[in-house]
Each structure stands twice: as C-alpha cells, then as structure tokens.
C-alpha cells in the first residue's frame, strides 16, 4: 500500500540504480549540493563510511551517467545524464525523509515478476538477481 505513494518511475529508478541505503544517501548527498565536487574521503566522513567505498560508489555513479568528474582529480559531482533522471532523483530526495520505510522496502523487496522476466534474459549471472 505504501508503495503506491512512490511513483512508478521512482520505483524503477530505485530498482535499477539503488543497491543499498548508504548508496542512496550518497546519491542524495550529491544531489543536495549539485555544484560541489566531492572526494570519496569527504563523502566517507559525511556518511560515516569507508572512503574507499565512497570513492568506488562515485566512480560507479559516473559510469552510470549520474555523476561526472570534477575539475580536481578523483572528485565527482552530481551530473545526471538526462533531465528525467534529475527529476526522478529530485522526487526521490523529496520522498526519502517522509517515506523512508517504504523506500527501504522497495530497495530490498522482491523484484516484480515483470522485472524478473527481463532479468531472466541477462546471460551473465548477476549476483543481485534472485
């Protein structure tokens, strides 16, 4: 029931891009200050996470078109490749404080059958499936 409060495109974004709560918080932190270029160390301090993990997250986000390298080496800033992504992330940022539990459920809940159908045709075994 709570799922309905989260729009479909946000759910799909979470299903595709968000692997953990900490990853989500990192992304939202980037979104909150779009002009700022972060290092893994800075983010690690803010999120109370390992800097190496944060750095890898940043590189992962960049690889997926959600972040871009900053001017200084090893820094990244918020840079979604498409405007729809930005809108979806903005909505996610707005919903997260109020619907934290629902969003957690979406992150860790069972994928929908439709999603499982599509996943079935990924030929390489993906550890995050099933």
């Amino acid at each position, binding site marked *: 029931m709570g799922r309905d409060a989260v729009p479909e495109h946000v759910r799909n974004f979470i299903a595709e891009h968000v692997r953990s709560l900490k990853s989500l918080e990192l992304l939202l932190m980037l979104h909150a200050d779009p002009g700022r270029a972060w290092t893994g160390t800075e983010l690690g301090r803010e999120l109370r996470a390992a800097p190496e993990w944060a750095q890898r997250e940043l590189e992962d986000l960049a690889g997926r078109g959600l972040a871009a390298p900053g001017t200084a080496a090893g820094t990244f800033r918020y840079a979604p490749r498409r405007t729809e992504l930005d809108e979806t992330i903005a909505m996610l940022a707005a919903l997260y404080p109020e619907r934290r539990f629902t969003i957690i459920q979406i992150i860790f809940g069972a*994928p*929908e*059958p*439709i999603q*499982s*159908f599509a*996943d*079935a*045709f990924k030929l390489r075994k993906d550890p995050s499936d*099933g």
Partner: protein
Amino acid sequence: MAEAVYILCMLASLACALLLFRGFRRSRARLLLWSSVCFIGLTANNALLFADKVVFPEVDLSLWRSMTALVGLLLLIYGLVWDAE
C-alpha cells in the same frame, strides 16, 4: 533453407524456455514458469514443423503443430493475466 530456419527457430524458442525456467528457479515468479512453458510449446511447434516438412512429409501434422502452440500461448495468457502483478 526452410529446414535451417525451422531448426534455428526451434533452438531460439528452446533457449528462451531454458532462460525463463532458470529465471523462475531464481525468482520464484510464476509468470516465468508460464512463459517457459509457452516457449516449450513453441519449441514443439517448430520441431513438429520440421518433422512435418522434412521427416514425415507424407503425414499432415498441421493440427498437432497448431495445438502445441495454442496450449503454450493459452498458458502464457493465463500467467500474464493472473501472475504479472
């Protein structure tokens, strides 16, 4: 040429059936089971087509061909209606 096409189609539908069954084992989503069964029906359809044209040309297997496809398709429709959430 036609024979090669039938074989290819048979292998393609078999591949889909296997991938979907593997997906069903992983996700336990029943939709994938029905989908897998549908593609098994299509595999049978293609196999019977090959048999009809190449192996037993004197026998008419068209009814069996249609039937195997139909059973598979109907089961998939059942799955799409009830198990797709």
